[in-house]
């Protein structure tokens, strides 16, 4: 449902009369947008809203004072990068006029357009943007819960988990076995498990060459598969083994006490076990009533407004984005489209149909990069590939082409983190 200007302003009037607002939102007559989640999606959305609609009061709610970026965290795991290079603060976001509130949303009242925070305050909004990212589907893989992640790290949200997996690899003796368990689709960063496998293999090859790495997969195919497998053959023969779903790769149970992974065909007892668990949308999206039975959020592909709740937009890894993958680049594009959509709705204009770009780089080795790109547009209510565009790096390419893509991967990270946090 498209909201009219009247509904947009009307919702605000109701909220303003019923709630005591914190100082940043007291200004009368200003439309208020609250953004939940200060990752790649939410942060740039908040900043973009201020740019396209300087009159807006924009509040960004994020529980962490510092953001730790996932892209390039596989390089940290492999000992190629310091975690400090992954950390970003919100000073520049504040300087742009966004009120950054260090707190976490506890509940959303979509009818009265209110967000309640754990800290006790309540924020009224005219438009709410949810950018909660992913949560883990604890319990859907028997034996794997939050406590289990302390011995078998997921490292799928960057931070302490990244460092834990790094330490475990460092502590492992040469000749040990590392196992990565990769989940079924959909999940955050589709090529991520395979980049991780590549860079861990790079570390083992350089430092612990008698070791072995096994990827147990709940899928029969994966992103950039042909490129990854050709590179593995070339760079890590005999070191890295990928076990597909059909070959018994699906992990059905884990035992954190003995660091054991069980499939229908075999039991793996390993020195280091990285379990990337099944995922679903961040909890606040469920509370707000914007996720469906798939565990993810259906949206209008022009404004990213929820199909389930008026006045709430959802962006980033949380959404069902059709052909678009769950990636930081995609989240950035979605955030800007959402901000433009909110601005258009506020001016009572028809939001224009967007085109969105995504590029995912993966490092197979520090000087060997590969990419997949796509251009997307709304088609029949979903985001579809623009035909004839996008695709993979070439299957055959000289080393300098791979090195160039590796350098572009780093340039991409510098650019997107500067745009988001600097």
């Amino acid at each position, binding site marked *: 449902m498209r909201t009219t200007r009247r509904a947009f302003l009307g919702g605000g009037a109701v909220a303003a009369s019923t709630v005591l607002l914190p100082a940043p939102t007291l200004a009368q007559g200003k439309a208020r947008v609250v953004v939940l989640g200060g990752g790649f999606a939410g942060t740039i959305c908040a900043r973009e809203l201020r740019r396209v609609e300087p009159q807006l009061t924009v509040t960004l709610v994020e529980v962490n004072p510092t953001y730790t970026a996932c892209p390039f965290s596989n390089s940290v795991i492999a000992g190629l990068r310091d975690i400090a290079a992954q950390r970003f603060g919100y000073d520049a976001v504040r300087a742009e006029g966004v009120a950054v509130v260090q707190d976490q949303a506890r509940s959303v009242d979509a009818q009265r357009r209110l967000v309640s925070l754990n800290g006790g305050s309540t924020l009224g909004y005219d438009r709410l943007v949810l950018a909660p990212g992913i949560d883990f589907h604890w319990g859907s893989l028997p034996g794997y819960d939050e406590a289990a992640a302390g011995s078998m790290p997921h490292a799928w949200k960057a931070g302490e988990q990244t460092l834990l997996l790094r330490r475990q690899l460092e502590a492992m003796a040469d000749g040990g076995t590392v196992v990565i368990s990769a989940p079924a689709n959909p999940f955050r960063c589709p090529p991520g498990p395979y980049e991780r496998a590549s860079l861990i293999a790079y570390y083992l090859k350089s430092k612990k060459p008698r070791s072995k790495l096994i990827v147990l997969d709940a899928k029969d195919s994966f992103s950039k598969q042909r490129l990854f497998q050709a590179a593995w053959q070339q760079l890590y023969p005999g070191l890295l083994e990928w076990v597909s779903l059909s070959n018994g790769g699906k992990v059905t149970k884990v035992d954190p006490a003995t660091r054991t992974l069980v499939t229908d065909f075999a039991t793996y007892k390993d020195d280091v076990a990285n379990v990337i668990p099944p995922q679903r949308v961040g909890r606040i999206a469920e509370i707000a009533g914007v996720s469906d039975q798939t565990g993810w959020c259906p949206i209008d592909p022009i404004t990213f407004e929820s199909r389930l709740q008026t006045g709430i937009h959802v962006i980033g890894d949380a959404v069902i984005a059709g052909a678009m993958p769950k990636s930081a680049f995609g989240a950035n594009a979605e955030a800007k489209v959402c901000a433009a959509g909110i601005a258009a709705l506020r001016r009572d204009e028809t939001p224009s149909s967007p*085109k969105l770009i995504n590029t995912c780089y993966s490092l197979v080795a520090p000087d060997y990069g590969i*990419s997949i*790109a796509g*251009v997307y547009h709304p088609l029949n209510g979903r985001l579809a590939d623009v035909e004839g*565009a996008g695709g993979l790096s070439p299957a055959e390419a000289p080393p300098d*082409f791979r090195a160039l893509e590796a350098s572009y991967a780093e340039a991409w990270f510098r650019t997107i983190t500067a745009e988001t946090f600097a």
Partner: protein
Amino acid sequence: MLAFQSGERPSTVMERIAKGFSEDEIRAIAAWLAAQH
């Protein structure tokens, strides 16, 4: 961007992306970029 699109100008990813846009859209992007300087 038109040269990327046609492949006349060699690239890694730009050809794949430029192919997703019409000539009018590319001209609009170019105009926007020019206005940033």
